[in-house]
């Protein structure tokens, strides 16, 4: 496949993404650890005030896993806006499969995520967390990458033709965040739905993905694991739609910039 032939370019672009992100900041790479820590702090305090923190003894770990996982998606969504527009130079002046740009962006964020995941792992070991079935982990990870790529492809393209995307996105991301059981337990969400309709919650692909991570890392919510198939299905649809949309528009990108 063309992408395999272009792996050198992919590698360089991933490298570039990683280098540039923190190039002009003093703390550099530490931001990729510091950002989730700060988020955890804020949501931890907020959850404590609202009383969420009393819902379970391991609430802190629960929150940390949720935030770290969410951050991977949030970073990808944010970066996808500029993945085409920010590379106008390359798009307008050079020829290569455009698909490499969003792909490199997701891979760069994945590397960041994997590093935070290592730290998270170390932390969970330190607090003697009982891990669930860790074999789920690679599958959920792959699903999340697919989701990041699918949404990234759609957003990157849309933002070229319709610049309002970036303004709309910040609202959508906020709504998406609250619809996903990141800082509240999934049971809270389920309580709103009739028992036979609780699969509806898993139409949000992130619900299934977050549940999957928690099932693997802290053996939590295993009872809902069968419903994550719904999330996986939605993820796959988003990926297919993203690829199809992007490939369709790729030839028009240079004209619009």
């Amino acid at each position: 496949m063309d992408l395999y032939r272009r792996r050198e370019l992919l590698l360089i672009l991933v490298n570039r993404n990683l280098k540039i992100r923190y190039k002009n900041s003093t703390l550099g790479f530490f931001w990729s650890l510091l950002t989730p820590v700060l988020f955890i702090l804020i949501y931890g305090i907020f959850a404590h005030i609202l009383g969420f923190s009393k819902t379970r003894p391991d609430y802190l770990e629960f929150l940390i896993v949720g935030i770290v996982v969410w951050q991977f998606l949030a970073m990808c969504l944010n970066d996808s806006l500029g993945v085409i527009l920010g590379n106008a130079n390359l798009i307008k002046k050079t020829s290569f499969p455009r698909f490499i740009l969003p792909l490199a962006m997701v891979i760069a964020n994945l590397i960041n995520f994997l590093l935070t995941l290592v730290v998270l792992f170390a932390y969970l070991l330190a607090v003697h967390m009982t891990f669930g079935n860790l074999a789920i982990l690679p599958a959920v990870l792959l699903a999340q990458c697919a989701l990041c790529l699918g949404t990234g492809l759609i957003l990157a393209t849309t933002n070229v033709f319709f610049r309002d995307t970036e303004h709309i996105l910040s609202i959508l991301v906020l709504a998406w965040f609250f619809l996903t059981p990141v800082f509240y337990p999934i049971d809270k969400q389920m309580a709103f739905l009739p028992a036979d309709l609780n699969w509806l919650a898993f139409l949000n692909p992130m619900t299934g993905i977050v549940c999957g991570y928690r099932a693997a890392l802290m053996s939590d919510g295993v009872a809902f694991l069968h419903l994550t198939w719904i999330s996986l299905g939605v993820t796959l649809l988003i990926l297919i739609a993203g690829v199809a949309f992007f490939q369709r528009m790729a030839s028009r990108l240079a004209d619009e910039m």
Partner: protein
Amino acid sequence: MTKTFRLRQGGTPTLKSMALDILRGGRLKRDFLALKDVTFSVRHGETLGIIGANGAGKSTLLSIITGTMSPTSGTVTTHGSISSLLELGAGFHPDLTGRENVFLNGAIMGLSRKQMRDRFDAIVQFAGIGDFIDQPVKHYSSGMYVRLGFAVAVEIDPDILLIDEVLAVGDSDFQQKCLQKMRDFRERGKTMLIISHDLKTIQSVSDRILLLDSGSILGMGDPANVIDEYQSLTRKRNARLIEREWGTGEVKITGVSLLDGTGVKTDRFKWGAPLEAVISYHAEGCIVQPVFGFSISDEGGRVIYGNNTQIEKFDIPRIEGDGSIALTLEKIAMAKGTYRVSFSVHSADHKINYHRLDNKYTIDVESDKAFEGYCYMPIKWGR
């Protein structure tokens, strides 16, 4: 092949503009034909120069051949690897160092890291940027930018090299190096497509020249011929730009013939040779003491020389009906270039302009004498 751009009023759509469009019943759209049915082929090992005014479609053409844009209809077929230099520092990321950008560009062109490593020293050497190679390119001067861009595009050693107007930048030293490199390229049987406004250079490096005008091919073939065609086209356009005809019409200049010393009509004159003009007129009724005049302006609109019958005390007591006035300029003293000639007829007190033909005629002055300034004054050196 044809390329259409959809021009939208006011750029990228926003929510507000979309709402307005719905109210208006449709978006204001206009199609702009950047290239109209352009068909040509370039042989292997040939160097094709592409010329044309700004907006003629030259850059769009190269963008499509490179593959950054796709044609609206038609196809482009290329054989072999393509390296293109579409703009100074194309594809450089400002935050990355020169070294990183070189490898990035190499990867875009499809070269492996190993292949790039082998070429790296040659690139740095050709670009002549020394230690700056490890500085972010945002700190580069525009000259360094171009030099590095050119060095990468050339050292990648593609089968086809596309160059868009890069010879215009960089100092003459580097331009010489570029030209030398392009000649090397040509000798090694590589194919090149070059856009340039530097007609002299492009004529010397091209096997054939393609003239584009508003998206269509106006001419293609022998460099000297096509460049001639282009120059006369621009001359006509420029002249038309500030050409004006006005006056009361009591006397009309019905025509002016510009002749060389032998009485042959021409618009090309040799420096030092004579220029003759026969001004034909028609006067309604009897006009007393008319004054005929002329002026010669350069392309910037500066009047180089102007004179009339009154200043030269050539008395014309009265004219009536048809007639003509002859003007002889014994030696053309202007520097080589393109000039516009105006003719006029007005009253002796300059209060009534009967007829004025501003910048109506265009002449070319050819010269081997390369003096400085606008015109030549006869001199003698002695010792």
